[in-house]
């Protein structure tokens, strides 16, 4: 893998991490990270849509007229999201039950349209796929870490394995805890990123 391609892939983790650096996709980030496994599933679902829509959009971008490019991208993204929704409903009903509403909302996740607009429409298929993978894994990583922190503090368990009896600090399961945990993680992340 050439240096450039490696850069495209790795920038999603640190330099352009969608959650901690670009602050995109905050709605699913805050809402679905009540536990590590929920964060991980939401991240992977977004990754799936991101990679496929990036590939298709980079392939069709040269022939799509400028005036209709946004509607076309949205239709492509919505198609993949709906496919994912059908598949989850049919084969992973438990996960579908937890993520429920947030799966259709991937359509309006700014990360997906943002990558289509900023990257996939101007780059080749392979680069766009790598970009989708990098950003997708960066998002998954952020959501999993945030989910882990909230689960440890909020329910005293990790990936569903309970290490204290009784409740944790319940506020971390609720919305205010999501903002607090995200804020501190962001500080930590940017501090580490700046040092390197």
């Amino acid at each position: 893998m050439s240096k450039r391609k490696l850069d495209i892939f790795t920038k999603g983790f640190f330099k352009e991490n969608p959650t901690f650096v670009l602050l995109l996709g905050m709605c699913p980030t805050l809402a679905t990270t009540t536990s590590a496994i929920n964060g991980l599933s939401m991240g992977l679902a977004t990754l799936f849509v991101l990679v496929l829509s990036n590939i298709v959009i980079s392939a069709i971008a040269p022939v799509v007229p400028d005036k209709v490019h946004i509607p076309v991208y949205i239709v492509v993204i919505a198609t993949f999201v709906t496919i994912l929704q059908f598949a989850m409903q049919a084969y992973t009903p438990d996960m579908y039950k937890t993520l429920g509403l947030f799966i259709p909302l991937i359509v309006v996740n700014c990360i997906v349209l943002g990558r289509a607009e900023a990257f996939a429409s101007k780059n080749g298929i392979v680069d766009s796929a790598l970009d989708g993978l990098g950003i997708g894994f960066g998002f998954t990583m952020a959501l999993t870490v945030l989910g882990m922190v909230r689960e440890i503090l909020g329910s005293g368990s990790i990936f569903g394995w309970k290490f204290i009896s009784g409740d944790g600090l319940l506020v971390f399961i609720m919305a205010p805890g999501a903002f607090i945990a995200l804020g501190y993680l962001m500080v930590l992340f940017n501090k580490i990123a700046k040092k390197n």
Partner: protein
Amino acid sequence: MALCLTLVCLVCSALLGGMYALTAEPIAKTNADILRASVNAVLPEGGELSEAVPVEVGGQASEYYVSKSSDGTPAAYAIKSTTAGFGGPLTVMVGLTPDGKVYNTSVLSHTETPGLGAKCTEDEHFMNQFKGFDPSQKILTVKKDGGDVDAITASTITSRAYSLAVKNAVEAFKTIKGE
């Protein structure tokens, strides 16, 4: 321009149509399995299950299932009951024996807060208190409201909704028996 958009939409809708046809059956099967599992969870083992029978529960259209013993007499009833929870509709399957006692309850679907109200699906103390609950001896409201149900910590609204769902099912059962 319009042609391009039309083409993209055509291709995408064709794809979705295909995906729908492919998954329609597994989805229906999964949903039926979930329903069956919840009915089985709240009824005594054995017995032949009837088809869904429409009934009004708490003023809303709902349905119930009858489990018949081998000689054809009803052995137990499972009534689907929906009330307003904290985050949205809370649907509980309530199993009742012919004497009007609650056999068991199970949550079919909910949108309660994870870690708080959502405990109504896993808190054993909360769920077990409905097993064998006799509505003629005890009151089906939370203790805060003068009843006999221990609420889940910090989730009074969910506990109230759950108790009300069971209560509505008990009321509906009286109408079913009266028929």
